[in-house]
């Protein structure tokens, strides 16, 4: 059931108890976890934090901890599946779910005792009404048996008449039941067809902190990072991002009004969050401007930097702005001050000429100490790179801990190592995109586009992780749309496969919706993958919390694809 008063129904319930936190492995979940941890530290609520990467992990963690804990808080996992059936908990376990995955499973919505959803009901949910899906079986059977006992007590003459009446009524009832069931199946199919994301979990928990008036700038910054993660990984529409940014902006101004007091100004070491209408060049403040332009999705796709023509246009662009190549290629911090001062406006003016209307994006930046300035987008990329780093001997939970640490202000060296990893990841993505487009690796299979990364591709290990592969997928689709001539191909969704585990012989398959300006980011591949896998009995593992990402045995790849083609055409 949905929680209306988050303070009374969630926080005050767990405040005196011990809680188990089961947190999924994405940046939004990490930020939400940090906010909740900070609140728990304030109020000395004992908790245990366990990272989970998929449904199996969730099941194991639950089994291990169910004896010791009564209250479980699930962050970014658990809303889109019938949780009670999956975990089989005891009757006194209570689950608080703060998840961005939609659609929320109907059983979770209508269970009153064990499942509490920390989700805003204004979020366009479209949950079917109770009567359309659930029906009390007792009324019907009571009616039947009542009629039959009546029939039994009547004498035989009247019995025939009554029998006919009873039989007719029973036939009517059965027909009504079949119709109801058919309608129910239709409603459920429509409801569960598309997968999408709702308000960020970090923003939800920040609002809890705000209601308790225990919010701090650190928590606000984490909420902003959580929201930016949803935008960077293309989980929410641009409209929703802008609306949520406006909400965050109100909180930022509320926290910032202390800065303006001339007499008691804050020390330079204090954290300052500011609204920035900044450039969409990833990591440009921690890299050189040239590298950043060459490795950001937006600029690469519009200039088409994988072609010679594109390179020339880039040189023209830089010349147009009057930026000398020597300046542009050195580290951003060492660029001439005179160039840095008006950089954003100069770039915006020039980019309008070259067709890049949205080179600037609304975001937030943080500033503490003399050297440390970070944009929310930079932090998201750094933490994502740490979370999915493919170094040897590092398990998923090691990476989770490193990424969680990098979000604290005291662990700047972690953050800087994350930024370095993110740079490598971005370069790898751009090179892979360039090679895929130049060698025409993207094939149109009819209802969708398909691309397979061969095993020998450089940096293919990086793409065995779901978030990195999804990012590559989105960049590739954008690049393809910009470079393809066929108008029809531009409206197709993309499925991408990359080798995941060479010893076990599996590939990871990701499906994303078609690229368009007004896309509502609704993904139907979750259900499609399930159906295709069933119909061909391929060996698949639907372990990820995002149903559009699955693991598949390499040998079953072709029959799986064929099934998908027949399913979707």
């Amino acid at each position, binding site marked *: 059931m949905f929680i209306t008063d988050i303070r009374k129904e969630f926080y005050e319930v767990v405040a005196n108890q*011990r809680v188990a936190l089961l947190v999924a492995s994405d940046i939004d979940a990490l930020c939400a976890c940090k906010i909740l*941890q*900070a609140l*728990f*530290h304030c109020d*000395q*609520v*004992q*908790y*245990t*934090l*366990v*990272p989970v990467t998929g449904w199996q992990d969730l099941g194991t963690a639950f089994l*291990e*901890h169910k*004896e*010791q804990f009564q209250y479980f808080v699930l962050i970014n996992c658990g809303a889109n599946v019938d949780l009670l059936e999956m975990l089989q908990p005891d009757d006194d376990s209570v689950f608080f779910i703060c998840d961005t995955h939609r659609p929320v499973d109907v059983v979770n919505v209508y269970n009153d005792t064990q499942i509490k959803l920390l989700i805003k009901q204004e979020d366009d949910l479209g949950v079917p009404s109770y009567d359309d899906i659930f029906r009390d079986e007792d009324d019907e059977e009571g009616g039947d048996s009542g009629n039959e006992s009546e029939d039994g007590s009547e004498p035989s003459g009247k019995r025939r008449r009554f029998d006919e009446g009873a039989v007719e009524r029973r036939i009517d009832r059965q027909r009504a039941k079949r119709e109801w069931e058919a309608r129910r199946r239709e409603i459920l199919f429509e409801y569960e067809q598309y997968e999408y994301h709702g308000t960020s979990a970090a923003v939800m928990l920040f609002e809890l902190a705000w209601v308790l008036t225990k919010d701090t700038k650190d928590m606000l910054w984490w909420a902003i990072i959580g929201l930016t993660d949803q935008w960077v990984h293309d989980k929410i529409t641009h409209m929703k991002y802008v609306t949520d940014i406006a909400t965050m902006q109100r909180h930022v101004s509320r926290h910032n009004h202390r800065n303006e007091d001339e007499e008691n100004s804050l020390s330079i070491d204090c954290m300052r969050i500011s609204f920035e209408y900044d450039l969409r060049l990833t990591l440009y403040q921690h890299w050189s401007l040239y590298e950043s332009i060459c490795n950001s999705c937006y600029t690469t796709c519009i200039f088409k930097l994988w072609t010679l023509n594109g390179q020339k246009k880039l040189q023209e662009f830089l010349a147009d702005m009057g930026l000398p190549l020597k300046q542009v290629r050195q580290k951003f911090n060492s660029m001439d001050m005179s160039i840095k001062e008006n950089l954003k406006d100069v770039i915006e003016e020039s980019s309008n000429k070259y067709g890049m209307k949205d080179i600037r994006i609304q975001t937030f930046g943080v500033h503490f100490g003399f050297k440390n300035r970070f944009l929310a987008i930079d932090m998201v990329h750094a933490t994502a790179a740490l979370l999915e780093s493919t170094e040897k001997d590092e*398990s998923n*939970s*090691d990476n*989770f*801990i490193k990424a969680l640490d990098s979000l*604290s202000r*005291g662990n700047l060296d972690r953050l800087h190592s994350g930024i370095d990893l993110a740079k490598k990841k971005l370069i790898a993505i751009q090179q892979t995109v360039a090679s895929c487009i130049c060698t025409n690796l993207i094939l149109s299979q009819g209802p969708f586009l398909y691309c397979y990364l061969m095993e020998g591709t450089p940096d293919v290990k990086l793409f065995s992780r779901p978030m990195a592969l999804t990012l590559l997928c989105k960049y590739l689709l954008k690049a393809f749309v910009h470079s393809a001539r066929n108008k029809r191909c531009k409206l197709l969704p993309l499925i991408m496969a990359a080798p995941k585990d060479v010893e076990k012989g599996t590939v990871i398959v990701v499906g994303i919706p078609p690229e368009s300006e007004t896309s509502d980011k609704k993904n139907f591949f979750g259900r499609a993958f399930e159906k295709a896998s069933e119909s061909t009995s391929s060996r698949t593992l639907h372990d990820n919390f995002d149903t559009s990402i699955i693991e598949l045995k390499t040998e079953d790849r072709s029959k799986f694809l064929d099934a998908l083609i027949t399913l979707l055409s």
Partner: protein
Amino acid sequence: MEALYEQNQTDVNEAKADGRAELIPSIKLRHCCLLRNQRCLTAYLYDRLLRIRALRWEYGSVLPANVRFHMCAEEVQWFTHYKKSLASFMRSLGGGEGLDITQDMKPPKSLYIEVRCLKDHGEFEIDDGTVILLKKNSQHFLPRWKCEQLIRQGVLEHVMS
């Protein structure tokens, strides 16, 4: 050392019996060697003693079996005596009520601390009877006094944010 001592003994007897004065420097040399070896051994034994004393502060009053395996019987006895004198000292503090000074080696900042588990340690029981499963890379928020032992042993790590 025994070999040196035997040789010295024979030489001394010889010197006394035959009056051979030229053996005296070699006797003196061997004697100096013996004294030096004795000093080394006592330094080693004293160092072991200091470490055993530190063990009491690190592990508490019950030593794990693998540590006790490496101690000889006299050292175990010494340890028991040390334990007893420390316990009677602690009992005498705080106006007859007793104070456990092996807790809180650094001034505590808060009642509960956040710890991260560095290795799988299995189940761990805290004061109110609840059991916590310490699995690698899980984080917990626990009362400080229960965690100190495990932090010293290296199973848990204090996370400062």
